């Protein structure tokens, strides 16, 4: 995905986002991080096509995403949001089925294939046992997985996640991220996430993009970009890295 000369603002006076050039690597996990108000979610919204840029373009396979229909776009880009709501009569399966919406046409689509894809999506989210239960009856962690399954069912090249772990406890946060990582490794799906937690961003990404004030101030391999000096400058934190027995580096905040 290529992004060129993007500008966007919420109030038409001050630009909120200004980007010259950004390339998102296919089949990799890219995470966007930055302080509050840096424009992370806005950028994700622009990439997803929810928001329209005032100038510049977002190109997917050299096609401007706004020049294709919403359904076509939905076949290429799926999004999982922070918070979601579903009417109480929806079962897990009915919810995931909505992920097949972009493939539906007036005269019935291939029912069997659809059902299989829905099965796989539910399986990938480990909700097979719950598929006939109502979404509102699930626990928070399970519910977010249902929305993840919906996105899986879209079978898109790109999967975008906007702070999907905010309302989950730590166990479920890591669980969700592990599943997303699995998707990437097994099916080469390109992942773009906005995360708050710096450690999660570091540990689950192939590429990291740091935003501040609506601009991208750094991009690259996570541990190369995120040095303690850089983190101090951008996030106003004093940190150091700790390497655990498995060789994984963790960020620790020092008061």
């Amino acid at each position, binding site marked *: 995905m290529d992004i060129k000369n993007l500008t966007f603002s919420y109030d038409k006076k001050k630009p909120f986002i200004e980007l010259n050039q950004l390339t998102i690597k296919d089949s990799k996990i890219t995470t966007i991080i930055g302080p509050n108000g840096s424009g992370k979610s806005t950028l994700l919204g622009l990439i*997803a096509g*929810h928001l329209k840029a005032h100038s510049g373009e977002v190109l997917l396979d050299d096609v401007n995403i706004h020049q294709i*229909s*919403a*359904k*076509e*776009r*939905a*076949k290429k*880009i*799926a*999004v999982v*949001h922070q*918070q*979601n*709501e*579903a*009417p*109480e*009569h*929806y079962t897990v399966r009915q919810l995931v089925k*909505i*992920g097949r*919406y*972009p493939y539906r046409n007036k005269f019935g689509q291939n029912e069997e294939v659809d059902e299989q894809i829905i099965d796989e999506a539910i399986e990938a989210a480990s909700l097979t046992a719950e598929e006939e239960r109502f979404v*509102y009856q699930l626990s928070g962690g399970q519910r977010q997985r249902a*929305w993840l399954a*919906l*996105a899986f069912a*879209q079978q898109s090249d790109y999967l975008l996640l906007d702070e999907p772990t905010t309302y989950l406890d730590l166990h479920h946060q890591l669980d969700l991220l592990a599943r997303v990582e699995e998707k990437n490794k097994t099916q080469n799906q390109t992942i773009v996430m906005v995360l708050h937690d710096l450690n999660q961003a570091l540990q689950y990404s192939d590429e990291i993009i740091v935003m501040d004030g609506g601009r991208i101030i750094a991009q690259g391999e996570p541990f190369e970009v995120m040095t303690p000096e850089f983190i101090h400058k951008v996030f106003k934190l004093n940190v150091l890295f700790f390497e655990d027995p498995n060789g994984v580096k963790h960020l620790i905040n020092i008061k």
Partner: protein
Amino acid sequence: MKKILIAYSVMVVVFLVVLYESVVLGSLQLNFGEIIKGVFGDRSGATAVVFDLRFPRVLIAIFAGASLALAGALLQAAIKNPLADPGIIGITSAAMLGNVVVINFLPHLFFYSPIFAFAGGVIAFVILYAVTKKYDMSPVFVLLVGIALNAVFTAIIKVSGVTAIHFTESTGLSMKTWEDANLLMGFSIFGIIAALILGPVCNMLGLSEKTIRSVGFPVGKARWVVIIISVYLASVSTAIVGSIAFIGLLVPHIARMLVGSNYKVLLPFTVLLGATMLLAADTIGRMIVPPFEITASIIMSLIGGPFLIILIRKFGKIYGH
């Protein structure tokens, strides 16, 4: 599932009972045999009177009740607000204004009054749409602008009552003729069918906007269509029976408590429930202190309100919580 079947069965039975009573009861009482004979053309004396005066009224109550209830249900789906009701957002008063215009200035076009009412409703809706468009018809804005519109249109109607122009608000179900009934049925049937088809769309609109947009669902357009049908149903009803409080608000809620929030199931049930409630209200209003009539609107408010409270206490659910 079983609960839904039971609810539907009971509803049909209640409807038939209310229908029977509404036809039979009145200052002139008929028995079942006379009714059947009358339906098949053999009308004489009392039967003729009943057929001329009461039948149209019964049919109007059924179609207006169904239309208003559906209008409320659709609106609630579109703007995701359980307090939504065509009256609240100004559609009803705009429709009445349209009607007032016809009656006062173009009385020869009386047959087209539902169209003028619809025109009024549409104008109100267009203003609503134009103002809330950039928010993609988000619930809060629709409600706020609607309330403002309602105030304006109601004021205009009141003002025209103060001036020398004499106008008749066609409120209530009394003194309605077959002309009125045919007019209402002819216009509303299209809206009712359209509404029933929109069940799946309403279901989609119940999900988070961001999510359905992500799968390519045309949110703005869908809302637009649902609201237009709602406006149509409310306007057409208002043209014939004026504004009747509460149906659009109460009936969908009660229906939801009984059969759940799946619009494919909810909408047909709303048709039955709306028709039954208005018919019952009208019949009770006729029979309670003869020869005086209490308007259906008042009965609806008196009975509908406490009824809703009882149901809430029993089933404890309001719009999905």
